[in-house]
C-alpha cells in the first residue's frame, strides 16, 4: 500500500511541477537577459496576456535586427517571463528569482499598482532598472522616491476628469445623481475614494452613494439596490475584470439601468465584452491608446497583434511594447549591461513611441494622453474627445 501512496502522490506532484514549470526558459551565457513577472493567470490574466505579447514583440524585433551591441559585439536579448498568478507576493518573489538566479540586467513591470509596485520595490532594492506601464502615476509615485524604476501610464486626475468632461461635451443629460463603486486596491481608493468625489462637486454632480468593496468581492446586490433606490443615473466603477463582469450582470438582473455606466480598469480587456455579449454595449472606459492614434507604428501594432493571435487588440499591447522598446533603446544607448549605465540612459529617454512622446519627469513618470472609449458591438470606439471620435456616443446605456 505504501507503493500506492508513493505512486499517487508522486504522480500528482510531478504533474503539478511540470505544469507550473511551463513557460520558464533558460538563457544562454551570451544573451542579454531581461525579465518580467506578469499576471498570466488569476483575475488579471486578461491584462498579462497582452503585456506578454507586447514585451515579446519588442524583443523579437530587436533580435531579428541582430540584437544589441555590447562592447562592440552584437548580442541577442533573452526575455524571461514568470507568472505571478495576480499575487503581489509572487511578483516580489519572481522578481527576486529573476535578479538573483536568472541574472537579469533589467526588468519590465507587471500590471496594476499592487503587482507593479511589489516587483518594483525588489528591483529598486537590488538597483536593477525597471521600465513599466500599467501603473497609474499617482499610485506609482505614492510608494516612494524612485531611483531605478520608470513608469509610463495615465495620470489618475486626468482619467477621473475624462468621464465628467465627456458627459459635458457629449451632452449626456442626466439627473446628475452619481453613484461611485470602487475596490479597495491602491488605485481604486485614489480614483473612487478621492478623485471622483472631488470632481463630482466641481462638475455639479451629487454623490448619492460611494461604496468601497474588497478587490475580489463577487456579490454586489446591496450596493446595486441602494444606487437604484437613490435614483443614480450615472454610475462610475473602478474594479478589475471579474468584478466588472459580475457588477454588469447583477445590475441587469436587478433591473437597474443607469443612463451612464463607466467602468475603469475592468472594462478594458476584450474578455470583458466577450463574457458579457450585448450587455457590454454602451459601457464607457478610459483609454490611453488606440490604433487610430497618430503615433509611429500604432496602426501596425494592432494589425500585427490581430493577425498573429486572431484576437481583438487591447491598449495594453501598446504600453508594454513601448516600455520594452524604451528599455532596449536604453541598453543600446548604454552599450553596456551595467545597470547604472542602463538606468542613466533610461533617464535620458526623449523619443516618440507607439504611445506618443515619452520623456520621464523628476518622479520617473511619463504621462500618456486619455480618451474615453465606449464598447459598441464587441469593440471599443473613441467617443471623446470629439476630435478623435471613431464612433458615435451611445446614450443612454441600452
Amino acid at each position, binding site marked *: 500500500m505504501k507503493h500506492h501512496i508513493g*505512486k499517487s*502522490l508522486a504522480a500528482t506532484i510531478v504533474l503539478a511541477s511540470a505544469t507550473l514549470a511551463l513557460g520558464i526558459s533558460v538563457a544562454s551565457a551570451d544573451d542579454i537577459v531581461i525579465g518580467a513577472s506578469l499576471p498570466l493567470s488569476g483575475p488579471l490574466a486578461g491584462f498579462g496576456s497582452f503585456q506578454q505579447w507586447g514585451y515579446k514583440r519588442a524583443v523579437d524585433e530587436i533580435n531579428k535586427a541582430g540584437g544589441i551591441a555590447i562592447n562592440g559585439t552584437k548580442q541577442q536579448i533573452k526575455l524571461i517571463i514568470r507568472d505571478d498568478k495576480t499575487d503581489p507576493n509572487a511578483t516580489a518573489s519572481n522578481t527576486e528569482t529573476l535578479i538573483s538566479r536568472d541574472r537579469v540586467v533589467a526588468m519590465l513591470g507587471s500590471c496594476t499598482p499592487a503587482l507593479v509596485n511589489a516587483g518594483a520595490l525588489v528591483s529598486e532594492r537590488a538597483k536593477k532598472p525597471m521600465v513599466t506601464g500599467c501603473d497609474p502615476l499617482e499610485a506609482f509615485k505614492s510608494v516612494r522616491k524612485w531611483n531605478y524604476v520608470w513608469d509610463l501610464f495615465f495620470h489618475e486626475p486626468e482619467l477621473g476628469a475624462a468621464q465628467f468632461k465627456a458627459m459635458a461635451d457629449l451632452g449626456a443629460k442626466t439627473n446628475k445623481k452619481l453613484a461611485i463603486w470602487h475596490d479597495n486596491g491602491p488605485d481604486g481608493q485614489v480614483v473612487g475614494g478621492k478623485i471622483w468625489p472631488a470632481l463630482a462637486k466641481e462638475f455639479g454632480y451629487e454623490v448619492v452613494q460611494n461604496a468601497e468593496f474588497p478587490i475580489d468581492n463577487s456579490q454586489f*446586490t446591496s450596493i446595486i439596490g441602494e444606487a437604484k433606490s437613490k435614483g443614480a443615473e450615472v454610475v462610475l466603477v473602478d474594479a478589475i475584470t471579474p468584478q466588472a463582469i459580475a457588477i454588469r450582470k447583477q445590475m441587469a438582473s436587478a433591473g437597474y439601468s443607469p443612463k451612464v455606466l463607466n467602468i475603469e480598469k475592468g472594462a478594458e480587456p476584450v474578455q470583458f465584452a*466577450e*463574457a458579457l455579449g450585448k450587455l457590454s454595449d454602451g459601457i464607457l472606459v478610459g483609454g490611453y491608446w488606440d490604433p487610430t492614434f497618430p503615433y509611429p507604428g500604432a496602426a501596425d501594432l494592432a494589425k500585427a497583434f490581430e493577425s498573429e493571435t486572431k484576437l481583438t487588440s487591447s491598449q495594453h499591447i501598446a504600453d508594454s511594447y513601448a516600455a520594452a522598446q524604451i528599455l532596449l533603446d536604453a541598453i543600446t544607448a548604454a552599450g553596456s549591461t551595467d545597470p547604472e549605465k542602463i538606468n542613466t540612459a533610461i533617464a535620458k529617454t526623449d523619443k516618440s513611441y507607439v504611445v506618443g512622446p515619452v520623456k520621464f519627469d523628476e518622479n520617473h513618470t511619463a504621462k500618456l494622453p486619455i480618451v474615453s472609449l465606449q464598447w459598441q458591438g464587441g469593440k471599443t470606439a473613441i467617443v471623446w474627445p470629439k476630435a478623435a471620435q471613431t464612433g458615435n456616443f451611445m446614450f443612454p446605456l441600452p
Partner: protein
Amino acid sequence: MPDIGVISSTIVAGVLLGGILALTALGLSIVLGVMRLVNLAHGDFLVVGAYAGLFFLQFTGIDPLLGVPVVAVFVGVLALPVYRLLLAPLADRGAEARMMTMFAVSIILENAFVLAFSADTRSIARDYATVALSLGPVTFPLIYLIGFVISVSLILTVHWLVSATAFGRDLRASAVDAEAAATLGVDVKRVQMLTFSLGAACAGVGGTLIGAAFQFGPSSGGAYLLNSLAVVVLGGLGSVIGTLAGGIALGALQSIGGLTLGDGYRDLVGMALFLLVLAFRPDGFLARGRT
C-alpha cells in the same frame, strides 16, 4: 437606512441564492459524510461544470440549463478515474493522504484550465440571466429563482436517492460504519466511488448555474470551496436536507450582512458563522441525524 424595497429584495435574493449555494455544497457534503473526505478539489469540479455548460452551449446551441443532465453525467464520469486511480489506493491510509491528494488535483486542474481555456474570465451569457422579476416592492433576479428551483429539485432527488433506495441504504451504512457495512456484504469501495461521482455530478450542475448567474475563471474554485465548507458546517456534516437549510441560511445571512455592513463583508459574515457553528454546534445547527 435602506428602504423597505431594498431590504426585502436583498433578503429574497439572498434566500434564492442560498438555494444555489446549497447545490454547490451538496457534493462536498455527501462525500464528506460517506468517505470522510474533505474534497479540496470540490471547487474545481464546480469550475469544470461551468466550463462544460459554456462549451455545451457553444458547440450544440442548446441552452445549458436544458443540458444540465449531460453536464452532470460528464463531470460525474470524469470523477471516476480520479477515485479509482488516486483515492482508492489510499483508502486505508487515513484522511490526510486523500485530502492532500485532492489538494494536488485542485492545483493540477487550475493549471489545466489555464492551459486549455486561457485565464480569461468567462460567463454563460443567456438573456434570462439578466432579467429582473418584480413582485410589488420586491425585485430579484430571474436566474436566482431558476437556480433555486433546479437546486431544490436536485437536492430533494438526492435526498430520495439516499433515503429510499438500495444504493442509499448502502451509502448510509457505509457512512455510519464502513467496516460493519462491509462485513454485511456492502461493497463499500463501489459505494464510495459512486458517491464521489455523484458529488462531482452535483458540483457540475452547480457550476453551470454559477456560470450562468455569475462569472468564473480558472481560479474561481477556491472561493466556492470556502462557501461550500460554510454551508456544510452550518447544515450538518453529511446531511442532504441540512445542506439545503445551511445554504439558504448562509445566503440569507450573508445578504443581511451585506445590507448592514456592506457587500464587501458578506464573506466575513459567512466565515464568522462558520467558526461560531464549529465552536458551539460542531455537528451543524440542524444536525440530529444524517440525511
